[in-house]
């Protein structure tokens, strides 16, 4: 057992799942209902509580943890990270919130996922791990909130969708702009025909923080003890290379195709996702892609054009139809033609996750489809991944959204899949 600490008491881990099981058992054996089970002013009763674990506790993971902890019906009982400092800091933060020492800390996600008391997990690892961690969680019967982008290559995303479908688990992708009122309003304008017939969608692909793909390798350095940094687990399904701490820096792995889809998937997971949603294209992708002066232009089967727009801060999308258009960004700016589309409307700034997290938690209880389900997130990410392949190959590509293969380009097809390093497996 590689567990660093597992001190969760039986009372602390009394979940919806175990409460309901025990409550049913009281028909045969009396069960004492404790104060913890009944809840408190800022804490839901056990029958309503969702017991959670977190996998990946870097800056994004910590932000997410705080968003989950803000919900009284969440009980965070475990954190997992391959990096010792992050793991300890996350445990300390959760323990501080609850005023105890009960949060368990793990190096290996498989140990966290083996806990039967955990209902759901939040995954905020590097991109390289999103698919595998989600699939392992689904195989263990957990509901999943996973950061975007949900895969590195397209084939991974398809297997993820199949696995979520197999187990019927709730999967929410961390594309929180779907839960932000002004983005939803813009999408609704497009979906309800207020812009006329939709013609062109502009998905901003962001300033290039990573300086493009670099595919660099780094000189070997002495590997630290596993408790400090589990290098083998950090690499996960990606190809092995000797340890160097720089690989794990966000701005390094973000530009490396073994670990990320670069800025196109980083930003496009949001902007392309919103465009596809506006185009009622959550279950498809464009069918044609062409390189165009450092960016990509794509066309959907319904004739709508998607333009990957060169990056200008803040993150934004623009939908243009025959009768009007709408622009919306992260700073709360909205512009429309005609202006009357926005008359009397007021929206907040920013891109908080609170509503998105709440939507996930509600769906865990109701078993309804969340606002950012696997299929939609996969298709949006696929569009970005195809755009990456198109830029790499430097030639126009045709894609069949049904078979999820290119038309007449076997070389491009090969880029849709990568072999996982064992023991990790997709199928």
């Amino acid at each position: 057992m590689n567990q660093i600490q597992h001190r969760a008491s039986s009372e602390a881990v009394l979940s919806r799942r175990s409460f309901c099981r025990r409550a049913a058992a009281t028909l045969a054996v009396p069960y004492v209902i404790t104060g913890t089970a009944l809840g408190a002013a800022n804490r839901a009763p056990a029958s309503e509580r969702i017991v959670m674990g977190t996998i990946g506790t870097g800056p994004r993971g910590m932000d997410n943890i705080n968003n989950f902890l803000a919900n009284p019906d969440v009980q965070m009982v475990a954190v997992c990270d391959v990096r010792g400092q992050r793991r300890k800091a996350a445990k300390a933060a959760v323990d501080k919130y609850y005023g105890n020492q009960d949060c368990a800390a793990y190096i290996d996600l498989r140990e966290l996922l083996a806990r039967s008391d955990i209902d759901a997990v939040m995954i905020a690892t590097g991109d390289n791990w999103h698919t595998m961690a989600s699939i392992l969680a689904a195989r263990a019967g957990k509901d999943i909130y996973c950061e975007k982008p949900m895969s590195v290559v397209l084939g991974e995303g398809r297997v993820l969708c199949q696995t979520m479908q197999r187990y019927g688990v709730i999967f929410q992708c961390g594309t929180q702009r779907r839960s932000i009122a002004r983005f939803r309003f813009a999408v609704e304008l497009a979906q309800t025909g207020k812009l006329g017939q939709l013609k062109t969608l502009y998905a901003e692909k962001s300033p290039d923080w990573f300086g493009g793909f670099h595919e660099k390798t780094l000189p070997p350095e002495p590997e630290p003890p596993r408790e400090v940094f589990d290098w083998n687990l950090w690499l996960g399904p990606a190809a092995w290379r000797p340890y160097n701490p720089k690989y794990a820096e966000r701005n390094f792995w973000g530009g490396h195709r073994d670990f990320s889809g670069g800025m196109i998937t980083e930003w496009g997971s949001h902007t392309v996702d919103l465009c596809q949603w506006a185009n009622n294209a959550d279950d498809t992708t464009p069918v044609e892609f062409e390189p165009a002066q450092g960016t990509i232009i794509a066309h959907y089967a319904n004739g709508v054009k998607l333009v990957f727009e060169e990056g200008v801060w803040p993150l934004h999308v623009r939908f243009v139809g025959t009768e009007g258009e709408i622009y919306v960004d992260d700073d709360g700016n909205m512009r429309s033609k005609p202006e009357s589309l926005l008359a009397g409307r007021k929206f907040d700034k920013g891109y908080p996750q609170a509503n998105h997290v709440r939507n996930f938690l509600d769906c865990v209880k109701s078993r309804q489809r969340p606002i950012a389900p696997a299929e939609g997130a996969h298709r949006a990410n696929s569009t970005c991944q195809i755009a990456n392949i198109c830029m790499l190959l430097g030639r126009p590509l045709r894609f069949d959204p049904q078979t999820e293969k290119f038309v007449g380009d076997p070389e491009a097809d090969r880029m849709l899949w990568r072999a996982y390093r064992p023991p990790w497996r997709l199928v």
Partner: protein
Amino acid sequence: MLRQLLVAVGLMAALCGAGISTLAADDSLDKAFEALKAYDWGKERAPLRPLEEAVAAAGKDAALAKALEKKLVELLKSDVSQAAKDQICRQLSLVGSADCVPAVAELLPDEKLSHMARYVLERIPAPEASKALREALGKTKGVQKVGVLNSLGVKRDAESLPAIVPLLADSDPQIAAAAAAALGAIGTSEAAKALADFQGKAPEALKLAAADAYLACAEALLAAGKKAEALAIYKELTKSEIRHVKLAATRGMMSVMGKKQ
């Protein structure tokens, strides 16, 4: 030879426009291969770029692809570093054909290079790639054998079934679990029979892997139009002691019966 290739690449560049237009009609490809010979972890990758650009262009130029493959195989067989072989395998995964399979397959039992060999073979659609993986089952052990099983699952290689089934009883639980997963992915009636038998025999630690493989097998059978066989699997798994497996089986039964979930 490589200069002649560059002429071909240059022609392609002229025809295709952006993307490979940076290729120059000089000796940069020769230099790229020289750089590859000397490549090691942490070395500058810029000298390798002409090779990567040629590989990208080779998707639309069969002669170029063949010439690049030949040169890459030569290098793969030579005494270059692990980092260089890693880079070679990445390029072969894009331009490799049945011709490169023997050289790549040699690496499957290699502790350091087995994964990169699979990286190539999983991407090559030629039946020779599946055959090489099948044959590697008898030459690999431990985590390398797990990887080979995973690749056979990815390729849904039904011909490997007789070699995989006995591995369900392997004393290494990782191998037994990988064998089950491969059978689930292959998803034939014969695979289903082996997995049915495995459900009862699997040790406690492998119950979940066994059930997951069985569910995958049911999905494959259903996709192949074998509804009755899929339904039989789902019915059996509704008796599972694992709650979420039982629920998944119930969902599966509903899908067989065409009920919306």
